[in-house]
C-alpha cells in the first residue's frame, strides 16, 4: 500500500461544514409537520407515582399529547447484553408507576414547538409516595453484591507465585507495603451536544435521527423496544457533537419519542436538557478503591492487591473495571489479585465513560506507585521502568507492540524530569509551590468485526462507506485518508459515507476501536474493488483492456495499466457505460488474539503550582508521550490526546457530581455547578507519539486513541500536587480546602486555627 497521507497532519474533511454551521446534527433535523417532545422527569428518587394531573398541560397552547404511566405508550423490555450489545437500559418508561431514581422519565409532552412542550411540562402536577433512597456508601451496604464477571474475567482474579497461599501472605512477606484507599465521585460525560432524537414514520417504516455512537446497535435496540423488526428501522447520525460513552448505548427517550411519533402519526423531535443529561444517559459510577502494594526495598513489586467497589443502579448493572483493566496487567509482580464488588444506589444507570475502568483505576494505581516510589526512595520513572511487564501476567503472552519504557524515557527527556526536586514543597515561585508528577497511561486496544464498501465511480471519484460514526473525533477524515491511500488517489477524490445504518455494518464507536476496526475493512474492500474493476475492464468490449489477461492489467494510483495501454478508472467506467464498480468486505481480528495481548501505553508528565495561602492547584505544563501504533492523522490524533488530557484535568481538579444522600437528587446537575476545565485551566500540552506500527494488531498498525489521554493524567496531577505540597489527596477532586492548611514546614504564618 502506498502511504502518501497516513501519518501526516490532515485538516478535517468536514471542518468547513462544521464551522459554517452546515453540519446537520440530530437536534437540527427539520421535518414537515414536526412536533417537539419534552420529557417529564421524577422529582423523587424512590417510590411510586400516585397521581399525575395533566389536565392543565393538555389544554396548554400547542399541546398534541401528554403521555404518562396513566396514559402510556406501549414499549417492550429492552434487549439484555450481549444480545442487545450496548443497550444502555432495558426497563421501558411509563409502563408502571415505580420510581428508581431522581430524574427518571415519567412522561412525555408533545407540542407544536419546543417552548410549548417545555412550558406545558411545567404545568403537570405529580404526586409521589416517596421512600428513602439509597444514595450513599453507608446506605448501600445492604445492597452490595459480587458481579458474575468483570471485563470477561472472574470478579476476583488471583495470580499467585508457587508456594504462596494468598495475596495477603505475599503482602505480609513484602519488606515495604503501601496500603491506600482512594475515592471518586460520580462523573458525567457532558458532551457539548445534548442527546436528541427525531423520529419519522413512513407507513410502518421508521427513520430515526439520533445522536448515537452506534447506528447499527441503536437500530436493533430501538426496534426491540418498539416491538418491530429491525429491518423496518433506519438510524442516521452523520455528526456527533461529543459523546465520551454516553451516546454508546440506547437510552429509552429515543424509542419513547418514536412511539409518540407513531401514535400521533407525525414526526417528533426530543432534545434533552442539560439537567436531563445528568439522569437519563449514564455516568461514570462512584468508586472506592483499596490498593495494597508490596515491594522489595529496591522497588521490585512482590504483591499487587486492588479491590474496587463501584456503584450501579437498581435497574442496570455496569462494572467500572478499575482494577481488572489496570493493576491486573500493568506491572510485573509474582502475586496479583484484583477484585470487584458492586453497590446499588437509586441513581440512573451508569455506563462507560471515556476510558472505562482505566481512567479511575490508573488514578489509584499510579498514585499508589508514586507513594511506593517515595517509600523506596526511588525515582517514580525508575520504579515503573523496573517493574515493566514483558508478558501479560497470568497469560504469559507478549504484547503485540509495547514501547512503554520508551514512553517514560522520551517523556522524561522532553519534560525535563531530571530537574525535578524530589523533596516535597522544596520549590517555590513567589506565593506558589511548584511540583512535578508523572504517571503511566494505559488503555486496551480493541478491534471488532466491521464491513466497508469501496466504490469506483465514472466521474473519477471513489466512495468509501461504512456504518461507523464520527463522534467529533475525526473519523470522516481518517476514512477518507485510508481510502485515498488504499486507492492511491488524492483525498479530494474520495467521498465518505458514515453514520447510516443502511451502510455496511460497523461496530459502535466505543472502546477506541473505530479506526482499528473499520480501516482494515476499507483496505480489504479497496483491493476487492480494484480486482472487480480490472475484471470489468478486460471483459467489456468497449474497454481499452478488453481481452487482456487479468494478470497483465494492474491498478496504480487511479490508473489501469496493461497490454501496452493505460487509462484512468473514470474513463474506463465511462467508456463501458458503467456508473460504478464496488466491493463490500468484512474484516475481523484473527488468531493473533490468542498469541498476543493488545494495549496502548503512554506516559504523562505534569507540572503544577499550588498557592501556598489558598490552596488552588493550577497546571503549568504537561508532556504526554503515547504509544498507540501508527498515527493516522497527526492533527486529529493530537486533538484526541489533548481532549483526553483536558478530561483528566477536570477529573482531578474540579469535576464531580454531588449526590444528596437524603433525596437522591444531584445537587449540581448543570454547567454552572458541575465544573469542567475552561481554556484558562489548560496549560500548554506537549504531545509526542512513538509511532511504531502495530501490524500484528491490524494491517494499518493503528490502535485506538480516543480514550488513553485521560488515563494517567489525574494521577500525574495528584502526584505533582504531592511533590509541590507534601499532601496526598486521595479523594477526588482535589479542591482547595483539601490542601489546607498546607504543611507546617512551609514558610507561612499559621492560619489554621479557627476563631
Amino acid at each position, binding site marked *: 500500500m502506498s502511504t502518501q497521507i497516513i501519518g501526516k497532519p490532515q485538516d478535517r474533511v468536514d471542518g468547513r461544514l462544521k464551522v459554517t454551521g452546515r453540519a446537520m446534527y440530530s437536534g437540527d433535523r427539520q421535518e414537515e409537520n414536526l412536533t417537539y417532545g419534552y420529557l417529564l422527569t421524577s*422529582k423523587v428518587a424512590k417510590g411510586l407515582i400516585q397521581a399525575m394531573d395533566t389536565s392543565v398541560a393538555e389544554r396548554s397552547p400547542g399541546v398534541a399529547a401528554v403521555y404518562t404511566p396513566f396514559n402510556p405508550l406501549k414499549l417492550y423490555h429492552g434487549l439484555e447484553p450481549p444480545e442487545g450489545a450496548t443497550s444502555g437500559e432495558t426497563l421501558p418508561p411509563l409502563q408502571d408507576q415505580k420510581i428508581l431514581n431522581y430524574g427518571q422519565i415519567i412522561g412525555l409532552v408533545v407540542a407544536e414547538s419546543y*417552548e410549548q412542550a*417545555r*412550558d406545558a411540562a*411545567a404545568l403537570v402536577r405529580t404526586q409521589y409516595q416517596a421512600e428513602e433512597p439509597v444514595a450513599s456508601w453507608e446506605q448501600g451496604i445492604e445492597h452490595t453484591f459480587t458481579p458474575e464477571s468483570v471485563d470477561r474475567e472472574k470478579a476476583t482474579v488471583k495470580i499467585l507465585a508457587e508456594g504462596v497461599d494468598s495475596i495477603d501472605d505475599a503482602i505480609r512477606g513484602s519488606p515495604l507495603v503501601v496500603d491506600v484507599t482512594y475515592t471518586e465521585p460520580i462523573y458525567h460525560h457532558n458532551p457539548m451536544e445534548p442527546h436528541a432524537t427525531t423520529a419519522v414514520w413512513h407507513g410502518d417504516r421508521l427513520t430515526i435521527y439520533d445522536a448515537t455512537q452506534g447506528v447499527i446497535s441503536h437500530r436493533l435496540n430501538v426496534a426491540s423496544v418498539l416491538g418491530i423488526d429491525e429491518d423496518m428501522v433506519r438510524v442516521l447520525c452523520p455528526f456527533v457533537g461529543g459523546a465520551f460513552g454516553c451516546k454508546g448505548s440506547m437510552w429509552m427517550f429515543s424509542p419513547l419519542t418514536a412511539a409518540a411519533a407513531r401514535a400521533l402519526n407525525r414526526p417528533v423531535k426530543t432534545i434533552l436538557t442539560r439537567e436531563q443529561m445528568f439522569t437519563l444517559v449514564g455516568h461514570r459510577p462512584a468508586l472506592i478503591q483499596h490498593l495494597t502494594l508490596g515491594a522489595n526495598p529496591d522497588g521490585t513489586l512482590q504483591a499487587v492487591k486492588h479491590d474496587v467497589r463501584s456503584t450501579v443502579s437498581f435497574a442496570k448493572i455496569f462494572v467500572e473495571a478499575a482494577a481488572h483493566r489496570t493493576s491486573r496487567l500493568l506491572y510485573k509482580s509474582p502475586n496479583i489479585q484484583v477484585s470487584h464488588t458492586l453497590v446499588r444506589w437509586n441513581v440512573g444507570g451508569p455506563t462507560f465513560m471515556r476510558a472505562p475502568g482505566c481512567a479511575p483505576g490508573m488514578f489509584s494505581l499510579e498514585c499508589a506507585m508514586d507513594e511506593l516510589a517515595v517509600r523506596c526512595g526511588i525515582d517514580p520513572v525508575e520504579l515503573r521502568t523496573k517493574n515493566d511487564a514483558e508478558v501479560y501476567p497470568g497469560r504469559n503472552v507478549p504484547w503485540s507492540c509495547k514501547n512503554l519504557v520508551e514512553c517514560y524515557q522520551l517523556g522524561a527527556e522532553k519534560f525535563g524530569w531530571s530537574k525535578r526536586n524530589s523533596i516535597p514543597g522544596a520549590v517555590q515561585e*513567589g*506565593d506558589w509551590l511548584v511540583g512535578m508528577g508523572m504517571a503511566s497511561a494505559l488503555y486496551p486496544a480493541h478491534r471488532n468485526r466491521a464491513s466497508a464498501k469501496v466504490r469506483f465511480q465514472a466521474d473519477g471519484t471513489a466512495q468509501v462507506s461504512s456504518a461507523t460514526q464520527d463522534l467529533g473525533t475525526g473519523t470522516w477524515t481518517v476514512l477518507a485518508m485510508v481510502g485515498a491511500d488504499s486507492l492511491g488517489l488524492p483525498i479530494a477524490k474520495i467521498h465518505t459515507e458514515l453514520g447510516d445504518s443502511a451502510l455496511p455494518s460497523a461496530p459502535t464507536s466505543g472502546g477506541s476501536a473505530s479506526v482499528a476496526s473499520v480501516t482494515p475493512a476499507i483496505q480489504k474492500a479497496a483491493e476487492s474493488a480494484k480486482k472487480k474493476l480490472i475484471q470489468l475492464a478486460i471483459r467489456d468490449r468497449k474497454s481499452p483492456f478488453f481481452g487482456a489477461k487479468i494478470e497483465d492489467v494492474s491498478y496504480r494510483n487511479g490508473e489501469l495499466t496493461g497490454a501496452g495501454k493505460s487509462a484512468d478508472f473514470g474513463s474506463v467506467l465511462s467508456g463501458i457505460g458503467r456508473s460504478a464498480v464496488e466491493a463490500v468486505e468484512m474484516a475481523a481480528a484473527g488468531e493473533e488474539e490468542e498469541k498476543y495481548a493488545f494495549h496502548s501505553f503512554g506516559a504523562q508528565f505534569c507540572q503544577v503550582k499550588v*498557592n501556598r*495561602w*489558598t*490552596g*488552588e492547584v*493550577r497546571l503549568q505544563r504537561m508532556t504526554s508521550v503515547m504509544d498507540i501504533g501508527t498515527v493516522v492523522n497527526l492533527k486529529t490524533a493530537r486533538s484526541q490526546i489533548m481532549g483526553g488530557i483536558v478530561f483528566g484535568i477536570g477529573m482531578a*481538579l*474540579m469535576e464531580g457530581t*454531588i449526590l*444528596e444522600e*437524603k*433525596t437522591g*437528587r444531584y*445537587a*449540581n446537575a448543570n454547567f*454552572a*455547578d458541575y*465544573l469542567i*476545565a*475552561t*481554556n*484558562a*485551566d489548560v496549560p500548554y500540552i506537549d504531545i509526542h507519539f512513538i509511532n511504531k506500527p502495530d501490524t500484528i494488531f491490524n494491517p494499518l498498525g493503528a490502535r485506538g486513541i480516543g480514550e488513553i489521554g485521560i488515563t494517567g493524567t489525574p494521577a500525574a496531577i495528584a502526584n505533582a500536587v504531592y511533590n509541590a505540597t507534601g499532601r496526598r489527596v486521595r479523594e477526588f477532586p482535589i*479542591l*482547595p*480546602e483539601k490542601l*489546607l*492548611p498546607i504543611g507546617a514546614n512551609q514558610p507561612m*504564618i*499559621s*492560619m*489554621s486555627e*479557627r*476563631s
Partner: protein
Amino acid sequence: MRPFTYEVPSSIQEATSRGGADAAFIAGGTTIVDLMKLEVMNPSRLVDVNPLPMLGIQMREDGLRIGALEKMSDVAEHPEVVANYPVISEALLQSASAQIRNMASIGGNLLQRTRCGYFRDVFTPCNKREPGTGCSAIDGENRMHAILGTSSSCIATHPSDLAVALVALDASIYIQNGAEERVMNLDDFYLVPGETPDHENQLRPGELITAVRVPRLLWARRSTYLKIRDRESYEFALTSAALALDLNGDTIRDVRIAVGGVGTKPWNLPEVRQALAGKPLKPETFAAAAKLAVNGANPLRHNGFKVDLVQRTIVRALMNLGGLA
C-alpha cells in the same frame, strides 16, 4: 417559561411607571432570562430598559459615575477605571465569561440573584423563592453557601464580585422612582435575609437603578480584587477580597476592604479596616486583623473551610498589594 408581554418605555420615568410587582426590567438579560426559563422568576411583563439614557463612565470632582446600562466589559476596560480603581476592573474581569460581560449591565450585575442551587430549582423548598417553604441548603449541599449574615431561613451567598469591590469603596447608587431620585449607600442597600430572604435589597417595585457613584479616593489606585475559585475562569468565588491600601512607608495609613463568597450580601469589613489602620505593614498584623473578618461566622457541614479560606484570602491580598509577596 410563562407567557409575558414585552414593553419598551421611552423614558426613565415611563419605565418606572411601568414597573411593578408583576413586572421585571430587562437590560442584558443574562440573569432574568435564565431564571424565567427555570420558572424561578415569572414576571408577566418585561420592561426593556436598554433604550434609556443610563450610559456614561465619567471621572468627576466627586468621583466616578457609571451609568447603570454600561456593560461589564466596557467598565472593566475603561482607562479611568483601570487607572483609578483597579479593584473594580479586576472584579469585573474575574466575573462570568467574556460573552456574559459583553451583555450584562452594571445595574443588572448589582441585582443578580443568588446562585444557590435550591433557589434555582423550583422543585425544592426555598424561602427566598417561595417564602415559608423552608431552606433546603441548611441541611443540603452547602459548600458554596454563606457563613456570614445567614439566618435560619436562608444561607444563600450574594454572587456579585463587582458589588464587593463597590462596597469596599463606599459606593452609592442612584435610584429613580417616577420623577424622584434618591441616592443610597450600596452597603445599606443590600439586606441580610433574616426572616425575609425574599427581600434582598431596598429597591421598591418599579424603582430603577440608574447609575453608580464611587467616591473619589486617590489611594484606590493601589487596590486589587483577589478571587479564589475552583477553576481559573467563569466561576463564582469560594472567597474573594476587595482591597485598597493607603501606605505611608511601612505603615498602613488606611484600608478599604470587603469580602465576597462568604456573605449573604457583599461583606464590608470595617473592623478589619480599623485593626489595620496605623499598623505596620507586616504579615502578623494581617493575620490578626483577618481573624476579625469571621466574627459571628456560622459554618455548616460543607462550607466550614471558608472560615479559614477567607482569612487566607485577606492575608494573601494584603501581602500582594503591600508588596510583601
